[in-house]
């Protein structure tokens, strides 16, 4: 297999470009996706290549253009709708919760909504209290939609096409902190499965379950712990709804210890759901209570030192794994 050096941002762009080439029902729509090149430069150059009809700048009207994306999907298109940042998606939530997620069911199976909605999520760039939330886990509460979070170059490159092939609404959350991430990518990647979680690092002593921006944090923590002779398995959820319980439970029944790491606020987080499911289905296999490492429950403060303090750090993951092992010890 031949690989190329690329970034997460370029991989996302390649995925969008590829989709626009492969299927003429596909189009990209959102604020500044065209002439500006995307607020995080993801769609840079696509307007020039595909024209303003298929790379469509929208007014500041989140509810209408997300709703229009749903309508276009009903009309046989395959829209990729970009919302700049998860916080702004609150303005379009009515369309997502009351229309995209319900139409198939309300219509008794008549109306599919094959829309893909992409948005940036997460903190780490000192953007403060209205630009730094991580709400993908919160969205995972809604039946009728699928939630995916690419954490690797391969998933950034491959998840979009799989999402577009899905007959139902798929939301892709892109951790803003990952856009500059560099690495090697297999050139042949075009689509990837989005049904299963992935074991990014096999291990025997404890299972760390995470996704998105905290995958890197968790892998670094695992390396650190390896130095102490603690062998940690790291699982990347990849899809937050529906959750791949099988992969999680198989791991936990082997390691008997689980730590969930998640950039969302702790209360009502996806971590809580995972903790509850593991406890429900593997209670007697657990040597220690499931640990959670989440963000502090605070609207994100601007200063770097406070933002760092609010976010899950490698030391927090290391400490949680140690607690889990100490506990059961």
């Amino acid at each position, binding site marked *: 297999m031949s690989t190329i050096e690329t970034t997460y941002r370029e991989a996302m762009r390649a995925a969008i470009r590829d989709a626009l080439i492969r299927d003429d029902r596909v189009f990209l729509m959102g604020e500044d996706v065209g002439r500006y090149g995307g607020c995080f430069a993801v769609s840079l150059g696509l307007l020039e290549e595909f024209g303003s009809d*298929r790379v469509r700048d929208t*007014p500041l009207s989140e509810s209408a253009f997300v*709703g229009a994306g*749903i*309508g*276009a999907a009903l009309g046989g298109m395959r829209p990729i709708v970009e919302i700049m940042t998860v916080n702004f998606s609150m303005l379009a939530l009515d369309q997502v919760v*009351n229309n995209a997620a319900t139409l198939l*069911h309300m219509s*008794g*199976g008549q109306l599919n909504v094959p829309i893909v909605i992409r948005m940036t999520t997460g903190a780490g760039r000192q953007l403060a209290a209205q630009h730094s939330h991580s709400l993908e886990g919160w969205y995972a509460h809604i039946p009728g939609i699928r939630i995916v979070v690419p954490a690797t170059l391969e998933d950034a490159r491959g998840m979009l096409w799989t999402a577009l092939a899905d007959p139902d609404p798929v939301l892709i959350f892109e951790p803003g902190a990952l856009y500059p991430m560099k690495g090697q990518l297999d050139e042949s990647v075009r689509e990837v499965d989005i049904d299963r979680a992935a074991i990014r690092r096999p291990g025997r002593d404890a299972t760390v379950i995470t996704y998105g921006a905290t995958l890197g944090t968790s892998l670094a923590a695992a390396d650190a712990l390896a130095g102490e002779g603690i062998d940690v398995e790291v699982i990347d959820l990849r899809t937050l709804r529906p959750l791949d319980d099988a992969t999680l439970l198989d791991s936990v029944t082997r390691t008997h210890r689980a730590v969930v790491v998640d950039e969302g606020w702790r209360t009502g987080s996806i971590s809580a759901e995972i903790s509850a499911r593991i406890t429900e289905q593997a209670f007697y296999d657990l040597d220690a209570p499931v640990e959670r490492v989440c963000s502090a429950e605070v609207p994100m403060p601007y200063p770097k030192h406070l933002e760092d303090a609010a976010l899950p750090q490698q030391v927090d993951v290391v400490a949680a794994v140690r607690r889990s092992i100490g506990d059961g010890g």
Partner: protein
Amino acid sequence: MSAKHRLELLRQMLRIRRFEERCAELYSAAKIRGFLHLYVGEEAVATGVIGALRPDEPIVSTYREHGHALARGVPMDAVMAEMYGRTNGCSRGRGGSMHLFDADRHFYGGNAIVGGGIPLAVGLGLADAMRGSHRVTTCFFGDGAFAEGEFHESVNLATLWQLPVLFACENNHYAMGTALARTHGQTDLALRAASYGLPAWPVDGMDVLAVEDAAHRAVEIIRAGGGPVFLELRTYRFRAHSMYDPDRYRDKAEIEEWKQRDPIDALVARMRTDGELGDGDLEAIEREVADELARAEEAAEAGPWEPVTDLTRFVYSERS
């Protein structure tokens, strides 16, 4: 316009009227549950506007949509079965009165979020525009919905992109219990719509011929590539907002005044003066409608219930 055509308009309005009068009874008889919003008094709007559309032109409606569904040709038995919540209903019984759907007939519902369907119509229009089609997507919504942000964003988007969308605003002068003048600082809705840069004008929504005429002009503009059009259809609902509504907020005299302009009576009178309504014509229509309604009720009564084991079907598509 031929007498035959007017007779068709009359038949259509009567189908809607009799269907809904019966629904009110069936609600009291607890055959129909949940929210039930009747269209009685507004029949000329659905009949006139949808009469101007081709059968393949998409319609997006509201929770007050029985009239739109029937005018579009969704079979009355499928609509009635839906009200009963049976699997032979047009939404398989999952939707009920507020969520009538019929994909084959390009009827996109049935939306119970005020204003929630408007962006969907813009999107359906966008899909056509991107395929180079000027097929008209019609969106029905009320005077109350006009105050929602989704309306503003949608009309701007459709105008900016010159999409083939007909915005059919059913101004029945009340948003539930709130009169037009307590919803809008400027109550001339057509005037406000025009400020977005699309053709917009008010229409007498109690006169089915005026509505049909306006709708024809509107769809001609749109099909010619003239972009979206806004029609303010001035009408009135003769009954309460829903079966829950004691209707305390309207003055009875006002209701009576509007009832003098009943769109069905008006058309009948006009056809009589023009000698277009022969003896027994009306009775004949009434009989046909009564039969259709009776059959619909039977079909609904006989319709099977969805088995509980299928509860979670249709949350996601079934993968083959």
